[in-house]
Protein backbone atom coordinates (compact mmCIF):
# COMPACT_ATOMS: atom_id res chain seq x y z
CA UNK A 1 0.00 0.00 0.00
CA UNK A 2 1.26 3.47 -0.80
CA UNK A 3 1.72 6.15 1.82
CA UNK A 4 -1.21 8.23 0.52
CA UNK A 5 -3.60 5.30 0.61
CA UNK A 6 -2.60 4.48 4.20
CA UNK A 7 -3.26 8.07 5.22
CA UNK A 8 -6.60 8.06 3.40
CA UNK A 9 -7.57 4.81 5.13
CA UNK A 10 -6.64 6.24 8.52
CA UNK A 11 -8.61 9.43 7.85
CA UNK A 12 -11.73 7.49 6.84
CA UNK A 13 -11.35 5.18 9.85
CA UNK A 14 -10.96 8.11 12.22
CA UNK A 15 -14.00 9.87 10.76
CA UNK A 16 -16.14 6.74 11.16
CA UNK A 17 -14.97 6.21 14.76
CA UNK A 18 -15.60 9.84 15.70
CA UNK A 19 -19.04 9.84 14.09
CA UNK A 20 -20.09 6.45 15.52
CA UNK A 21 -21.65 7.63 18.83
CA UNK A 22 -23.49 10.40 16.94
CA UNK A 23 -25.21 7.81 14.74
CA UNK A 24 -25.59 4.88 17.13
CA UNK A 25 -27.63 5.93 20.16
CA UNK A 26 -28.24 2.54 21.77
CA UNK A 27 -26.52 2.49 25.16
CA UNK A 28 -25.96 -1.28 24.82
CA UNK A 29 -24.11 -0.76 21.54
CA UNK A 30 -22.00 2.11 22.89
CA UNK A 31 -21.12 -0.03 25.87
CA UNK A 32 -19.82 -2.70 23.48
CA UNK A 33 -17.84 -0.11 21.50
CA UNK A 34 -16.27 1.12 24.74
CA UNK A 35 -15.31 -2.43 25.71
CA UNK A 36 -13.80 -3.00 22.27
CA UNK A 37 -11.76 0.20 22.44
CA UNK A 38 -10.70 -0.46 26.05
CA UNK A 39 -9.53 -4.02 25.47
CA UNK A 40 -7.90 -3.02 22.18
CA UNK A 41 -5.92 -0.46 24.17
CA UNK A 42 -4.99 -2.99 26.88
CA UNK A 43 -4.02 -5.44 24.13
CA UNK A 44 -1.89 -2.78 22.42
CA UNK A 45 -0.12 -2.10 25.74
CA UNK A 46 0.48 -5.85 26.28
CA UNK A 47 1.57 -6.36 22.69
CA UNK A 48 4.48 -3.89 23.03
CA UNK A 49 6.19 -6.30 25.40
CA UNK A 50 4.38 -9.59 24.81
CA UNK A 51 4.13 -9.27 21.04
CA UNK A 52 7.32 -7.60 19.85
CA UNK A 53 9.72 -8.87 22.53
CA UNK A 54 7.76 -12.12 23.09
CA UNK A 55 7.87 -11.67 26.88
CA UNK A 56 4.55 -13.45 27.41
CA UNK A 57 3.15 -11.87 30.53
CA UNK A 58 -0.06 -13.11 32.10
CA UNK A 59 0.16 -10.60 34.92
CA UNK A 60 -0.80 -7.29 33.35
CA UNK A 61 -3.79 -7.10 35.69
CA UNK A 62 -1.21 -5.96 38.27
CA UNK A 63 -0.75 -2.65 36.43
CA UNK A 64 -4.41 -2.29 35.56
CA UNK A 65 -5.16 -2.64 39.28
CA UNK A 66 -2.38 -0.31 40.41
CA UNK A 67 -3.62 2.37 38.02
CA UNK A 68 -7.20 1.92 39.18
CA UNK A 69 -6.30 2.03 42.87
CA UNK A 70 -3.87 4.96 42.60
CA UNK A 71 -6.38 7.27 40.92
CA UNK A 72 -9.24 6.14 43.17
CA UNK A 73 -7.27 6.65 46.39
CA UNK A 74 -6.14 10.09 45.17
CA UNK A 75 -9.70 10.97 44.23
CA UNK A 76 -11.50 9.78 47.36
CA UNK A 77 -8.90 10.55 50.05
CA UNK A 78 -7.32 13.66 48.56
CA UNK A 79 -9.97 14.92 46.12
CA UNK A 80 -7.47 14.93 43.25
CA UNK A 81 -8.93 14.67 39.74
CA UNK A 82 -8.66 11.21 38.11
CA UNK A 83 -7.09 12.96 35.10
CA UNK A 84 -4.08 13.64 37.32
CA UNK A 85 -4.63 10.33 39.13
CA UNK A 86 -4.45 8.55 35.80
CA UNK A 87 -0.95 9.87 35.13
CA UNK A 88 0.01 9.19 38.77
CA UNK A 89 -1.32 5.64 38.39
CA UNK A 90 0.76 5.20 35.26
CA UNK A 91 3.86 6.39 37.13
CA UNK A 92 3.14 4.07 40.09
CA UNK A 93 2.68 1.14 37.69
CA UNK A 94 5.85 2.02 35.79
CA UNK A 95 7.82 2.17 39.05
CA UNK A 96 6.27 -1.12 40.21
CA UNK A 97 7.30 -2.75 36.94
CA UNK A 98 10.97 -2.25 37.87
CA UNK A 99 11.15 -4.61 40.89
CA UNK A 100 8.55 -6.97 39.37
CA UNK A 101 10.54 -7.10 36.15
CA UNK A 102 13.78 -7.52 38.09
CA UNK A 103 12.27 -10.67 39.65
CA UNK A 104 10.38 -12.08 36.68
CA UNK A 105 13.01 -11.52 33.99
CA UNK A 106 15.25 -13.92 35.90
CA UNK A 107 13.16 -16.63 34.31
CA UNK A 108 12.56 -17.18 30.63
CA UNK A 109 9.76 -18.61 28.52
CA UNK A 110 6.92 -20.29 30.37
CA UNK A 111 8.43 -19.67 33.79
CA UNK A 112 8.52 -15.95 33.12
CA UNK A 113 4.80 -16.24 32.40
CA UNK A 114 4.20 -18.06 35.68
CA UNK A 115 6.18 -15.50 37.66
CA UNK A 116 4.06 -12.68 36.22
CA UNK A 117 0.87 -14.54 37.21
CA UNK A 118 2.21 -14.97 40.74
CA UNK A 119 3.16 -11.30 41.15
CA UNK A 120 -0.26 -10.11 39.97
CA UNK A 121 -2.02 -12.57 42.28
CA UNK A 122 0.20 -11.51 45.18
CA UNK A 123 -0.71 -7.85 44.59
CA UNK A 124 -4.41 -8.76 44.57
CA UNK A 125 -3.98 -10.63 47.86
CA UNK A 126 -2.24 -7.59 49.37
CA UNK A 127 -5.12 -5.31 48.41
CA UNK A 128 -7.61 -7.89 49.74
CA UNK A 129 -5.81 -8.19 53.03
CA UNK A 130 -4.95 -4.61 53.94
CA UNK A 131 -8.22 -2.79 54.38
CA UNK A 132 -6.64 0.26 56.04
CA UNK A 133 -5.48 1.94 52.88
CA UNK A 134 -7.68 0.42 50.19
CA UNK A 135 -11.08 -0.70 51.53
CA UNK A 136 -10.17 -4.43 51.64
CA UNK A 137 -12.28 -7.01 49.88
CA UNK A 138 -15.51 -4.97 49.86
CA UNK A 139 -14.02 -2.27 47.65
CA UNK A 140 -15.74 1.07 47.33
CA UNK A 141 -18.02 2.98 45.01
CA UNK A 142 -16.79 6.14 43.34
CA UNK A 143 -18.92 9.14 44.44
CA UNK A 144 -21.14 10.11 41.54
CA UNK A 145 -20.74 13.82 40.82
CA UNK A 146 -23.11 13.92 37.84
CA UNK A 147 -21.60 15.55 34.80
CA UNK A 148 -18.10 16.46 35.97
CA UNK A 149 -15.68 16.26 33.04
CA UNK A 150 -12.85 17.63 35.20
CA UNK A 151 -13.29 14.60 37.49
CA UNK A 152 -13.55 12.21 34.51
CA UNK A 153 -17.27 11.68 35.05
CA UNK A 154 -19.75 12.16 32.26
CA UNK A 155 -23.49 11.90 31.88
CA UNK A 156 -23.33 10.70 28.28
CA UNK A 157 -21.73 7.34 27.55
CA UNK A 158 -20.47 8.82 24.30
CA UNK A 159 -18.02 10.98 26.27
CA UNK A 160 -16.43 7.90 27.84
CA UNK A 161 -16.22 6.53 24.32
CA UNK A 162 -14.11 9.52 23.20
CA UNK A 163 -11.83 9.22 26.24
CA UNK A 164 -11.02 5.58 25.57
CA UNK A 165 -10.75 6.25 21.83
CA UNK A 166 -8.09 8.84 22.75
CA UNK A 167 -6.26 6.24 24.84
CA UNK A 168 -6.28 3.75 21.96
CA UNK A 169 -4.94 6.37 19.54
CA UNK A 170 -2.17 7.13 22.07
CA UNK A 171 -1.31 3.43 22.39
CA UNK A 172 -1.25 2.90 18.62
CA UNK A 173 0.84 6.04 18.07
CA UNK A 174 3.41 4.89 20.64
CA UNK A 175 3.52 1.43 19.06
CA UNK A 176 3.90 2.98 15.59
CA UNK A 177 6.82 5.14 16.78
CA UNK A 178 8.52 2.25 18.59
CA UNK A 179 8.06 -0.06 15.59
CA UNK A 180 10.05 2.42 13.48
CA UNK A 181 12.76 3.11 16.05
CA UNK A 182 15.92 1.21 16.94
CA UNK A 183 14.06 -0.03 20.00
CA UNK A 184 11.51 -1.74 17.77
CA UNK A 185 14.22 -3.68 15.97
CA UNK A 186 15.87 -4.60 19.27
CA UNK A 187 12.53 -5.84 20.60
CA UNK A 188 11.92 -8.06 17.58
CA UNK A 189 15.48 -9.37 17.82
CA UNK A 190 14.95 -10.25 21.50
CA UNK A 191 11.64 -11.88 20.60
CA UNK A 192 13.26 -13.98 17.86
CA UNK A 193 16.25 -15.18 19.89
CA UNK A 194 17.37 -13.43 23.04
CA UNK A 195 20.82 -15.01 23.21
CA UNK A 196 21.55 -14.20 19.57
CA UNK A 197 20.34 -10.62 20.11
CA UNK A 198 22.69 -10.21 23.07
CA UNK A 199 25.53 -11.74 21.07
CA UNK A 200 25.24 -8.98 18.46
CA UNK A 201 25.29 -6.33 21.15
CA UNK A 202 21.64 -5.72 22.06
CA UNK A 203 21.40 -4.82 25.76
CA UNK A 204 18.47 -7.18 26.30
CA UNK A 205 17.91 -6.63 30.05
CA UNK A 206 17.73 -2.86 29.55
CA UNK A 207 15.44 -3.05 26.52
CA UNK A 208 13.12 -5.50 28.29
CA UNK A 209 13.04 -3.28 31.38
CA UNK A 210 12.20 -0.19 29.32
CA UNK A 211 9.43 -1.81 27.28
CA UNK A 212 7.92 -3.36 30.42
CA UNK A 213 7.86 0.11 31.97
CA UNK A 214 6.05 1.61 28.97
CA UNK A 215 3.64 -1.33 28.79
CA UNK A 216 2.85 -1.09 32.53
CA UNK A 217 2.32 2.68 32.31
CA UNK A 218 -0.22 2.34 29.48
CA UNK A 219 -2.05 -0.59 31.14
CA UNK A 220 -2.49 1.51 34.30
CA UNK A 221 -4.25 4.27 32.30
CA UNK A 222 -6.83 1.67 31.28
CA UNK A 223 -7.35 0.77 34.94
CA UNK A 224 -8.20 4.34 35.89
CA UNK A 225 -10.55 4.72 32.96
CA UNK A 226 -12.38 1.47 33.73
CA UNK A 227 -12.92 2.37 37.39
CA UNK A 228 -14.30 5.78 36.45
CA UNK A 229 -16.54 4.10 33.89
CA UNK A 230 -18.09 1.51 36.24
CA UNK A 231 -17.98 3.77 39.39
CA UNK A 232 -16.69 0.88 41.50
CA UNK A 233 -13.43 -0.69 42.58
CA UNK A 234 -12.50 -3.83 44.51
CA UNK A 235 -9.45 -6.10 44.33
CA UNK A 236 -11.37 -8.82 42.46
CA UNK A 237 -12.30 -6.47 39.58
CA UNK A 238 -9.15 -4.34 39.51
CA UNK A 239 -6.71 -7.28 39.61
CA UNK A 240 -8.97 -9.72 37.74
CA UNK A 241 -6.96 -12.50 36.09
CA UNK A 242 -9.32 -12.27 33.11
CA UNK A 243 -7.80 -8.85 32.28
CA UNK A 244 -4.37 -10.43 32.02
CA UNK A 245 -5.84 -13.23 29.90
CA UNK A 246 -7.76 -10.98 27.53
CA UNK A 247 -4.77 -8.64 27.03
CA UNK A 248 -2.75 -11.58 25.72
CA UNK A 249 -5.65 -13.28 23.93
CA UNK A 250 -6.70 -10.35 21.74
CA UNK A 251 -3.10 -9.84 20.61
CA UNK A 252 -2.52 -13.51 19.79
CA UNK A 253 -5.84 -13.98 17.99
CA UNK A 254 -5.45 -10.74 16.00
CA UNK A 255 -1.76 -11.10 15.24
CA UNK A 256 1.00 -11.07 17.85
CA UNK A 257 3.65 -8.38 17.37
CA UNK A 258 1.73 -6.33 14.82
CA UNK A 259 0.39 -2.79 15.11
CA UNK A 260 -3.25 -3.61 14.42
CA UNK A 261 -3.33 -7.21 15.74
CA UNK A 262 -4.76 -6.42 19.19
CA UNK A 263 -7.47 -4.22 17.69
CA UNK A 264 -8.56 -6.86 15.17
CA UNK A 265 -8.45 -9.57 17.85
CA UNK A 266 -10.58 -7.50 20.21
CA UNK A 267 -13.16 -6.73 17.54
CA UNK A 268 -13.55 -10.46 16.83
CA UNK A 269 -13.60 -11.63 20.46
CA UNK A 270 -15.77 -8.86 21.88
CA UNK A 271 -18.25 -9.07 19.00
CA UNK A 272 -18.48 -12.83 19.54
CA UNK A 273 -19.00 -12.25 23.23
CA UNK A 274 -21.72 -9.64 22.61
CA UNK A 275 -23.52 -11.94 20.15
CA UNK A 276 -23.40 -14.81 22.65
CA UNK A 277 -24.78 -12.47 25.28
CA UNK A 278 -27.74 -11.43 23.16
CA UNK A 279 -28.50 -15.05 22.13
CA UNK A 280 -28.15 -16.67 25.52
CA UNK A 281 -29.17 -13.90 27.89
CA UNK A 282 -27.30 -12.72 30.97
CA UNK A 283 -25.41 -15.62 32.51
CA UNK A 284 -22.91 -16.61 29.86
CA UNK A 285 -19.62 -16.40 31.80
CA UNK A 286 -18.76 -20.03 31.08
CA UNK A 287 -19.88 -19.91 27.45
CA UNK A 288 -17.85 -16.81 26.66
CA UNK A 289 -14.55 -18.20 27.91
CA UNK A 290 -15.29 -21.62 26.40
CA UNK A 291 -15.64 -19.98 23.00
CA UNK A 292 -12.57 -17.77 23.58
CA UNK A 293 -10.46 -20.79 24.48
CA UNK A 294 -11.62 -22.68 21.36
CA UNK A 295 -10.77 -19.67 19.16
CA UNK A 296 -7.37 -19.41 20.86
CA UNK A 297 -6.64 -23.11 20.29
CA UNK A 298 -7.73 -22.91 16.66
CA UNK A 299 -5.46 -19.91 16.05
CA UNK A 300 -2.47 -21.56 17.74
CA UNK A 301 -2.87 -24.87 15.91
CA UNK A 302 -3.67 -23.55 12.44
CA UNK A 303 -2.56 -19.92 12.19
CA UNK A 304 -0.09 -18.84 14.91
CA UNK A 305 0.36 -15.51 13.09
CA UNK A 306 -3.26 -14.64 13.89
CA UNK A 307 -5.94 -13.08 11.74
CA UNK A 308 -3.47 -10.52 10.34
CA UNK A 309 -1.21 -13.34 9.19
CA UNK A 310 -4.18 -15.08 7.58
CA UNK A 311 -5.22 -11.88 5.80
CA UNK A 312 -1.65 -11.24 4.57
CA UNK A 313 -1.32 -14.76 3.16
CA UNK A 314 -4.69 -14.57 1.42
CA UNK A 315 -3.75 -11.17 -0.03
CA UNK A 316 -0.39 -12.42 -1.28
CA UNK A 317 -2.00 -15.46 -2.91
CA UNK A 318 -4.50 -13.13 -4.58
CA UNK A 319 -1.73 -10.81 -5.84
CA UNK A 320 0.31 -13.82 -6.94
CA UNK A 321 -2.57 -15.16 -9.02
CA UNK A 322 -3.07 -11.75 -10.64
CA UNK A 323 0.64 -11.56 -11.46
CA UNK A 324 0.50 -15.07 -12.94
CA UNK A 325 -2.39 -14.10 -15.19
CA UNK A 326 -0.69 -10.91 -16.43
Amino acid sequence: MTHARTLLGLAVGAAVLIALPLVVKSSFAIDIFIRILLFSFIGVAWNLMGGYAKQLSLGHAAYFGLGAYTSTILQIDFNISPWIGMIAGGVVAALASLPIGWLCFRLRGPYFTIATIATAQALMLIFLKFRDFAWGAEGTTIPNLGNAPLMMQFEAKADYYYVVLGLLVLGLAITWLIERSWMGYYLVAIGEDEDAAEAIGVNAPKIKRDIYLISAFLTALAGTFYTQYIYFIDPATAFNFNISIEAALVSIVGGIGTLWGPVIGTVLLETTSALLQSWLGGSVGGVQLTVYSLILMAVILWRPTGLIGLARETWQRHVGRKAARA
Partner: protein
Amino acid sequence: MWETVAQAVINGLLIGGIYALVSIGVTLIFGVVKIVNFAQGEFVMIGMYISFFLATQFGIDPVISLLVTMPTLFVAGVLIQHFLIRRVLGPNDMPQIFLTFALSLLLLNLALLLFTANYRTVHTSYSDEAFHIGGLYIPVAKLIAFVVAMGLSAVLWVFLHTTDLGKAMRAAAQNRDVATLMGINPDRVFCVALGIALALAGAAGSLLMPFYSAYPLVGQVFTLMAFVAVVLGSLGNVMGALIASLMMGVAESLGIQYIGADSGLIVVFAMLLLTLAFKPTGLGGRAR
Protein backbone atom coordinates in the same frame (compact mmCIF):
# COMPACT_ATOMS: atom_id res chain seq x y z
CA MET B 1 2.90 -23.86 71.99
CA TRP B 2 4.95 -26.59 70.28
CA GLU B 3 1.76 -28.58 69.80
CA THR B 4 0.16 -25.92 67.58
CA VAL B 5 3.37 -25.75 65.56
CA ALA B 6 3.51 -29.54 65.29
CA GLN B 7 -0.15 -29.68 64.33
CA ALA B 8 0.37 -27.06 61.62
CA VAL B 9 3.40 -28.96 60.32
CA ILE B 10 1.39 -32.21 60.19
CA ASN B 11 -1.50 -30.54 58.36
CA GLY B 12 0.98 -29.02 55.93
CA LEU B 13 2.80 -32.27 55.25
CA LEU B 14 -0.47 -34.13 54.65
CA ILE B 15 -1.73 -31.63 52.04
CA GLY B 16 1.83 -31.27 50.71
CA GLY B 17 1.64 -34.92 49.64
CA ILE B 18 -1.21 -34.01 47.29
CA TYR B 19 0.68 -30.97 46.00
CA ALA B 20 3.57 -33.34 45.33
CA LEU B 21 1.48 -35.54 43.01
CA VAL B 22 0.50 -32.48 40.98
CA SER B 23 3.97 -30.92 40.88
CA ILE B 24 5.70 -34.19 40.00
CA GLY B 25 3.44 -34.31 36.95
CA VAL B 26 4.30 -30.74 35.97
CA THR B 27 8.02 -31.27 36.44
CA LEU B 28 7.94 -34.60 34.56
CA ILE B 29 6.26 -32.98 31.55
CA PHE B 30 8.67 -30.05 31.74
CA GLY B 31 11.69 -32.31 32.07
CA VAL B 32 10.78 -34.71 29.24
CA VAL B 33 8.61 -32.77 26.77
CA LYS B 34 10.03 -29.30 27.68
CA ILE B 35 6.63 -27.65 27.95
CA VAL B 36 4.76 -26.24 30.92
CA ASN B 37 1.31 -27.67 31.38
CA PHE B 38 -0.97 -24.84 32.50
CA ALA B 39 -3.89 -27.28 32.60
CA GLN B 40 -2.43 -29.65 35.21
CA GLY B 41 -4.78 -28.43 37.94
CA GLU B 42 -7.78 -28.89 35.66
CA PHE B 43 -6.96 -32.61 35.46
CA VAL B 44 -7.04 -32.72 39.25
CA MET B 45 -10.49 -31.15 38.93
CA ILE B 46 -11.55 -33.79 36.39
CA GLY B 47 -10.26 -36.55 38.68
CA MET B 48 -12.35 -35.08 41.50
CA TYR B 49 -15.53 -34.99 39.39
CA ILE B 50 -15.01 -38.57 38.16
CA SER B 51 -14.62 -39.75 41.75
CA PHE B 52 -17.59 -37.65 42.83
CA PHE B 53 -19.88 -39.22 40.22
CA LEU B 54 -18.60 -42.76 40.87
CA ALA B 55 -19.24 -42.22 44.59
CA THR B 56 -22.70 -40.70 44.25
CA GLN B 57 -23.96 -42.90 41.36
CA PHE B 58 -22.36 -46.26 42.19
CA GLY B 59 -21.30 -45.85 45.80
CA ILE B 60 -17.63 -46.41 44.96
CA ASP B 61 -15.20 -45.12 47.55
CA PRO B 62 -13.16 -42.17 46.15
CA VAL B 63 -9.85 -43.81 47.07
CA ILE B 64 -10.89 -47.00 45.20
CA SER B 65 -12.01 -44.93 42.22
CA LEU B 66 -8.33 -44.15 41.74
CA LEU B 67 -8.38 -47.35 39.68
CA VAL B 68 -10.70 -45.58 37.24
CA THR B 69 -9.36 -42.02 37.31
CA MET B 70 -5.71 -42.95 36.78
CA PRO B 71 -6.18 -45.08 33.61
CA THR B 72 -8.75 -42.63 32.20
CA LEU B 73 -6.44 -39.67 32.63
CA PHE B 74 -3.45 -41.65 31.38
CA VAL B 75 -5.32 -42.19 28.09
CA ALA B 76 -6.36 -38.53 28.06
CA GLY B 77 -2.71 -37.55 28.46
CA VAL B 78 -1.57 -39.75 25.58
CA LEU B 79 -4.30 -38.34 23.32
CA ILE B 80 -3.56 -34.72 24.29
CA GLN B 81 0.15 -35.22 23.59
CA HIS B 82 -0.52 -36.98 20.29
CA PHE B 83 -3.19 -34.70 18.87
CA LEU B 84 -2.42 -31.31 20.42
CA ILE B 85 0.96 -30.80 22.08
CA ARG B 86 2.97 -32.65 19.40
CA ARG B 87 1.84 -30.04 16.89
CA VAL B 88 3.32 -27.09 18.79
CA LEU B 89 6.70 -28.51 19.85
CA GLY B 90 9.45 -26.30 18.49
CA PRO B 91 11.64 -23.36 19.35
CA ASN B 92 8.72 -20.92 19.69
CA ASP B 93 7.38 -20.37 23.23
CA MET B 94 4.08 -18.71 22.42
CA PRO B 95 2.12 -21.68 20.97
CA GLN B 96 3.32 -24.02 23.73
CA ILE B 97 2.36 -21.71 26.56
CA PHE B 98 -0.97 -20.68 25.14
CA LEU B 99 -2.07 -24.12 23.91
CA THR B 100 -2.09 -25.65 27.38
CA PHE B 101 -3.36 -22.36 28.76
CA ALA B 102 -6.30 -22.50 26.32
CA LEU B 103 -6.86 -26.12 27.33
CA SER B 104 -7.03 -25.05 30.98
CA LEU B 105 -9.54 -22.29 30.17
CA LEU B 106 -11.59 -24.70 28.08
CA LEU B 107 -11.79 -27.49 30.67
CA LEU B 108 -12.52 -25.06 33.50
CA ASN B 109 -15.35 -23.34 31.65
CA LEU B 110 -16.80 -26.58 30.30
CA ALA B 111 -16.93 -27.80 33.90
CA LEU B 112 -18.69 -24.57 34.83
CA LEU B 113 -21.28 -25.17 32.09
CA LEU B 114 -21.77 -28.88 32.79
CA PHE B 115 -21.58 -29.04 36.56
CA THR B 116 -22.34 -25.39 37.59
CA ALA B 117 -20.22 -23.58 40.17
CA ASN B 118 -21.71 -25.59 43.08
CA TYR B 119 -19.39 -27.25 45.57
CA ARG B 120 -19.61 -31.07 45.48
CA THR B 121 -18.53 -33.17 48.41
CA VAL B 122 -18.42 -36.90 49.10
CA HIS B 123 -18.93 -38.10 52.63
CA THR B 124 -17.14 -41.38 53.40
CA SER B 125 -17.28 -43.50 56.55
CA TYR B 126 -13.81 -42.21 57.47
CA SER B 127 -14.31 -38.56 56.48
CA ASP B 128 -14.74 -37.48 60.11
CA GLU B 129 -12.40 -40.07 61.68
CA ALA B 130 -9.07 -39.04 63.12
CA PHE B 131 -6.17 -40.46 65.11
CA HIS B 132 -5.27 -38.67 68.31
CA ILE B 133 -1.64 -38.97 69.28
CA GLY B 134 -0.80 -36.96 72.35
CA GLY B 135 -2.45 -33.62 71.72
CA LEU B 136 -2.13 -34.04 67.98
CA TYR B 137 -4.91 -34.73 65.55
CA ILE B 138 -4.43 -36.68 62.31
CA PRO B 139 -7.50 -36.99 60.04
CA VAL B 140 -7.75 -40.46 58.51
CA ALA B 141 -8.77 -39.28 55.02
CA LYS B 142 -5.78 -36.95 54.77
CA LEU B 143 -3.46 -39.64 56.10
CA ILE B 144 -4.69 -42.12 53.47
CA ALA B 145 -4.23 -39.47 50.78
CA PHE B 146 -0.70 -38.72 51.98
CA VAL B 147 0.35 -42.38 52.21
CA VAL B 148 -1.05 -43.26 48.77
CA ALA B 149 0.52 -40.12 47.26
CA MET B 150 3.93 -41.00 48.66
CA GLY B 151 3.45 -44.60 47.50
CA LEU B 152 2.67 -43.46 43.94
CA SER B 153 5.68 -41.14 43.96
CA ALA B 154 7.89 -44.04 45.07
CA VAL B 155 6.48 -46.25 42.30
CA LEU B 156 7.22 -43.51 39.78
CA TRP B 157 10.77 -43.15 41.10
CA VAL B 158 11.36 -46.90 40.78
CA PHE B 159 9.82 -46.84 37.30
CA LEU B 160 12.08 -43.99 36.16
CA HIS B 161 15.22 -45.64 37.55
CA THR B 162 14.76 -49.35 36.83
CA THR B 163 12.62 -49.92 33.72
CA ASP B 164 13.81 -49.43 30.15
CA LEU B 165 10.95 -47.04 29.40
CA GLY B 166 11.69 -45.05 32.56
CA LYS B 167 15.37 -44.82 31.67
CA ALA B 168 14.43 -43.80 28.14
CA MET B 169 12.34 -40.98 29.62
CA ARG B 170 15.20 -39.76 31.77
CA ALA B 171 17.51 -39.98 28.79
CA ALA B 172 15.10 -37.95 26.67
CA ALA B 173 14.93 -35.39 29.50
CA GLN B 174 18.72 -35.06 29.62
CA ASN B 175 19.37 -34.77 25.92
CA ARG B 176 16.65 -35.32 23.38
CA ASP B 177 18.92 -35.48 20.32
CA VAL B 178 21.34 -38.01 21.76
CA ALA B 179 18.45 -40.08 23.11
CA THR B 180 16.94 -40.18 19.60
CA LEU B 181 20.30 -41.30 18.19
CA MET B 182 20.34 -44.11 20.77
CA GLY B 183 17.12 -45.44 19.25
CA ILE B 184 14.63 -43.91 21.69
CA ASN B 185 11.39 -42.89 20.00
CA PRO B 186 10.69 -39.43 21.42
CA ASP B 187 7.02 -39.37 20.42
CA ARG B 188 6.33 -42.52 22.41
CA VAL B 189 8.28 -41.27 25.41
CA PHE B 190 6.44 -37.92 25.33
CA CYS B 191 3.05 -39.67 25.21
CA VAL B 192 3.95 -41.80 28.22
CA ALA B 193 5.22 -38.75 30.12
CA LEU B 194 1.95 -36.88 29.52
CA GLY B 195 -0.02 -40.01 30.42
CA ILE B 196 1.80 -40.52 33.71
CA ALA B 197 1.60 -36.84 34.64
CA LEU B 198 -2.14 -36.69 34.04
CA ALA B 199 -2.70 -40.00 35.83
CA LEU B 200 -0.95 -38.54 38.87
CA ALA B 201 -3.19 -35.44 38.69
CA GLY B 202 -6.23 -37.73 38.47
CA ALA B 203 -4.99 -39.69 41.49
CA ALA B 204 -4.60 -36.42 43.40
CA GLY B 205 -8.24 -35.61 42.55
CA SER B 206 -9.54 -38.95 43.80
CA LEU B 207 -7.49 -38.77 47.00
CA LEU B 208 -8.73 -35.24 47.72
CA MET B 209 -12.40 -36.11 47.36
CA PRO B 210 -13.08 -37.52 50.88
CA PHE B 211 -12.03 -34.23 52.51
CA TYR B 212 -12.09 -31.52 49.82
CA SER B 213 -14.87 -29.99 47.68
CA ALA B 214 -14.93 -30.28 43.90
CA TYR B 215 -15.79 -27.13 41.93
CA PRO B 216 -14.74 -25.90 38.49
CA LEU B 217 -12.08 -23.47 39.76
CA VAL B 218 -10.53 -25.93 42.21
CA GLY B 219 -7.64 -26.78 39.89
CA GLN B 220 -6.20 -23.26 39.75
CA VAL B 221 -4.81 -23.39 43.28
CA PHE B 222 -3.14 -26.70 42.53
CA THR B 223 -1.61 -25.42 39.30
CA LEU B 224 -0.17 -22.39 41.08
CA MET B 225 1.16 -24.54 43.93
CA ALA B 226 2.72 -26.93 41.44
CA PHE B 227 4.39 -24.10 39.51
CA VAL B 228 5.92 -22.66 42.66
CA ALA B 229 7.06 -26.13 43.80
CA VAL B 230 8.60 -26.84 40.40
CA VAL B 231 10.56 -23.55 40.37
CA LEU B 232 11.58 -24.08 43.99
CA GLY B 233 12.61 -27.68 43.39
CA SER B 234 14.65 -26.90 40.23
CA LEU B 235 12.84 -27.23 36.91
CA GLY B 236 12.44 -30.80 35.71
CA ASN B 237 13.66 -32.42 38.92
CA VAL B 238 11.19 -35.01 40.31
CA MET B 239 12.74 -35.35 43.78
CA GLY B 240 13.13 -31.56 44.04
CA ALA B 241 9.44 -31.07 43.21
CA LEU B 242 8.44 -33.61 45.85
CA ILE B 243 10.47 -32.00 48.63
CA ALA B 244 9.45 -28.47 47.60
CA SER B 245 5.77 -29.50 47.62
CA LEU B 246 6.00 -30.81 51.17
CA MET B 247 7.81 -27.62 52.24
CA MET B 248 5.12 -25.50 50.64
CA GLY B 249 2.36 -27.45 52.32
CA VAL B 250 4.03 -26.76 55.66
CA ALA B 251 4.70 -23.08 54.85
CA GLU B 252 1.09 -22.59 53.77
CA SER B 253 -0.20 -24.30 56.89
CA LEU B 254 2.05 -22.21 59.18
CA GLY B 255 0.87 -19.08 57.34
CA ILE B 256 -2.75 -20.02 57.98
CA GLN B 257 -1.97 -20.74 61.64
CA TYR B 258 0.04 -17.62 62.44
CA ILE B 259 -0.95 -14.91 59.95
CA GLY B 260 -4.59 -15.61 59.13
CA ALA B 261 -6.95 -17.92 57.33
CA ASP B 262 -6.55 -16.42 53.87
CA SER B 263 -2.81 -15.84 53.98
CA GLY B 264 -1.63 -19.33 53.02
CA LEU B 265 -1.24 -18.28 49.39
CA ILE B 266 0.58 -15.06 50.34
CA VAL B 267 3.20 -17.17 52.10
CA VAL B 268 3.53 -19.39 49.03
CA PHE B 269 3.91 -16.42 46.68
CA ALA B 270 6.40 -14.86 49.07
CA MET B 271 8.41 -18.10 48.90
CA LEU B 272 8.35 -17.97 45.10
CA LEU B 273 9.41 -14.33 44.97
CA LEU B 274 12.19 -14.85 47.53
CA THR B 275 13.43 -17.85 45.58
CA LEU B 276 13.45 -15.82 42.38
CA ALA B 277 15.27 -12.98 44.11
CA PHE B 278 17.98 -14.98 45.85
CA LYS B 279 18.20 -18.40 44.22
CA PRO B 280 16.53 -18.24 40.80
CA THR B 281 17.89 -21.68 39.89
CA GLY B 282 15.78 -23.36 42.57
CA LEU B 283 17.12 -25.14 45.64
CA GLY B 284 19.60 -27.06 43.49
CA GLY B 285 20.43 -27.40 39.80
CA ARG B 286 20.12 -24.71 37.18
CA ALA B 287 17.31 -22.76 35.53
CA ARG B 288 16.66 -22.83 31.85
